[in-house]
């Protein structure tokens, strides 16, 4: 696996930390909602120690939200998402900072993860099973035979060294950069990098994930995590996923929408704000907010290029399912018969990712002159 930065350096690192129950999409995007609840249940099994599992509430703030309630409950039932209504009094007892004027509340099995450790756990497990992970390494070009990629040229940013590695099949899993990578192989991917802004508060105002009981829209969800609550999000198309400038009005919109769910939001200082591009799959004539959050795997044999597959779209919650889908396709193309086991195998500790690197590096470092390394010891303190 080749990654341009550290693990979770791109989109996944900066997501909203929401372990989706699927409730958010159960009316407007049921394919995505079913993917989410299925994966939610799998992730609870394979990474139980890495999740905050406090459920979530969808709350009606306005009459229009209330009118959505029946469709929401029908959507949950259609997508096998366990959902039940709780009384307003009970919701306020569970979430005392919730807007006291809410009209209805429905509890669903949302959860929260921490994206860095989420990714590290998967990669630590892969390392333990024989994978090689090259971080801080960029794919600069493809090596092709006719039009078919047979390898990639890479550059390690830590050392400046370049090399070429061969592959029977090359999988493009570069998220919103998938189009850029595909272009190097001479094909295109129907993808729309779509950014969203999130605002993290300086304290935690909710235990459960709080959502507006309506179609997904800007600032309609407050995800609590560790000692903060994170309000999200907006949705607009961007050209360059490397550097996204946060429009100040989006930050204000997060606060003004967030305070409809939790009025205290405006009184609490902001801890951080961030934006990142989602790799959504393009559909003609569709607004960024309405694009499906499902994922797709493109075998570029359809473009006359063999040995090159792109997996894109999706959400962090469905990352494992995306890997399963693309692995199945790779196995099929290589005539390799193997069952994907990632639904069942509990993940290795995320710390193993660095500990393993440490063991290997200790061996390599023993061969280096220690004088080559800079000294950043205590004596330098100013």
């Amino acid at each position, binding site marked *: 696996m080749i990654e341009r930065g550290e693990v979770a350096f791109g989109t996944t*690192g900066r997501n909203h*930390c929401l372990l989706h129950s699927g409730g958010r999409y159960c009316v407007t995007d049921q394919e995505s909602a079913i993917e989410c609840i299925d994966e939610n249940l799998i992730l609870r099994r394979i990474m139980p120690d890495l999740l*905050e599992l406090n459920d979530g509430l969808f709350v009606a703030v306005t009459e229009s939200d209330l009118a959505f309630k029946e469709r929401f409950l029908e959507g949950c039932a259609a997508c096998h998402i366990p959902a039940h209504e709780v009384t307003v009094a009970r919701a306020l007892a569970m*979430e005392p900072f919730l807007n006291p004027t809410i009209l209805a509340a429905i509890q669903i099995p949302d959860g929260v993860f921490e994206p*860095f450790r989420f990714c590290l756990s998967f990669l630590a497990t892969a390392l333990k099973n024989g994978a090689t992970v090259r971080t801080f390494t960029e794919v600069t070009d493809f090596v092709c035979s006719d039009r078919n990629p047979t390898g990639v040229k890479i550059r390690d940013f830590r050392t400046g060294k370049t090399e070429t590695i061969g592959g029977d099949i090359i999988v493009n899993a570069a998220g919103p950069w998938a189009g850029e990578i595909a272009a190097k192989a001479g094909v295109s991917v129907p993808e729309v990098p779509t950014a969203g802004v999130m605002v993290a508060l300086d*304290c*935690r105002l909710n235990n459960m994930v709080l959502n507006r009981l309506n179609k997904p829209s800007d600032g309609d969800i407050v995800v609590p995590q560790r000692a903060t609550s994170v309000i999200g999000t907006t949705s607009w198309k961007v050209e360059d996923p490397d550097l996204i400038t946060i429009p100040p009005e989006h930050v204000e919109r997060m606060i003004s929408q967030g305070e409809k769910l939790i009025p205290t939001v405006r009184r*609490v200082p902001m801890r951080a704000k961030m934006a990142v591009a989602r790799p959504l799959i393009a559909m003609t004539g569709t607004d960024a907010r309405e694009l499906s959050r499902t994922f797709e795997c493109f075998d570029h044999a359809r473009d006359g290029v063999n040995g090159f597959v792109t997996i894109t779209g999706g959400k962090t919650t469905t990352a494992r399912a995306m890997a399963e889908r693309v692995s199945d396709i790779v196995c099929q193309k290589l005539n390799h018969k193997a069952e994907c086991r990632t639904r069942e195998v509990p993940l290795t500790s995320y710390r193993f990712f660095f500990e393993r690197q440490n063991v290997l590096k200790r061996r390599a470092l023993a061969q280096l002159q220690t004088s080559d390394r800079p000294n950043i*010891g205590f004596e330098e303190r100013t």
Partner: protein
Amino acid sequence: MLTVPVEIFRFKPGQAQRYDTFTVEIAETAHVIDVIDTVWAKHDPTLTFRRACHHSSCGSCAVRINGAEKLPCIVRLTDVWNGRNPIRIEPLRNFPVVSDLLVEVGDFFERMSAASMTITCEAEGFLPLTVDTFAVAGVLPKTVELPDNLSRFNRFEQCIECGICMSACPTMATDNKFIGPAGLAAIYQARHKTDDPTRVKHLLGLADGEHGVWRCHSAFECTEACPQAVDPASKIMALRRELALRRLRKMFGLRI
């Protein structure tokens, strides 16, 4: 928009270390991580650094800003820039430098594993969590009830394993095998999650070892630098108190 000079520590294996100065155009409301991101995206893609969550939950981006250990994702540009001199960004101390701002964290994570630090813990029965919320925003804590299907609310531990305390700790510079503030705080947490005598003995044994709590010089730099209010120094002192009390009781033949 501001025009901000930034001076960044650079190192690649086989090359001499140096500082590169960049001038970035950036919004006044930016955080320091946005400055580093801009240098990488617009000026020099070979700059290596860690980043992930951008809201102080992952701990990956820790560096020194103008000499002090910080998480650049929660430090506002205007809080560290005086309007003239470059902002200096350097890697954490007491970790081997791999490249630029990137440090080797394998040893650190091995220590955190040895200290049995878990990621989730039982939540308190109230919100909000931060102690100074009332002082800053006038928000008082409120008690919470549990949903019917949950036996407890849980949440991630405060410690994000950012390594800031290890960098700020003067003892680390004199004993590179010192378990360190984060590890000792983790031992304290693990010790208070168990009543099993064998487990307690193991954890206290770690804390009482050659590179444990007695190595600490009581500088309290860790608590000062910690961005998550873990307060490792007070946990080290609490472990010392427990160990001292156990020795005294043993000396007088009392039950430990």
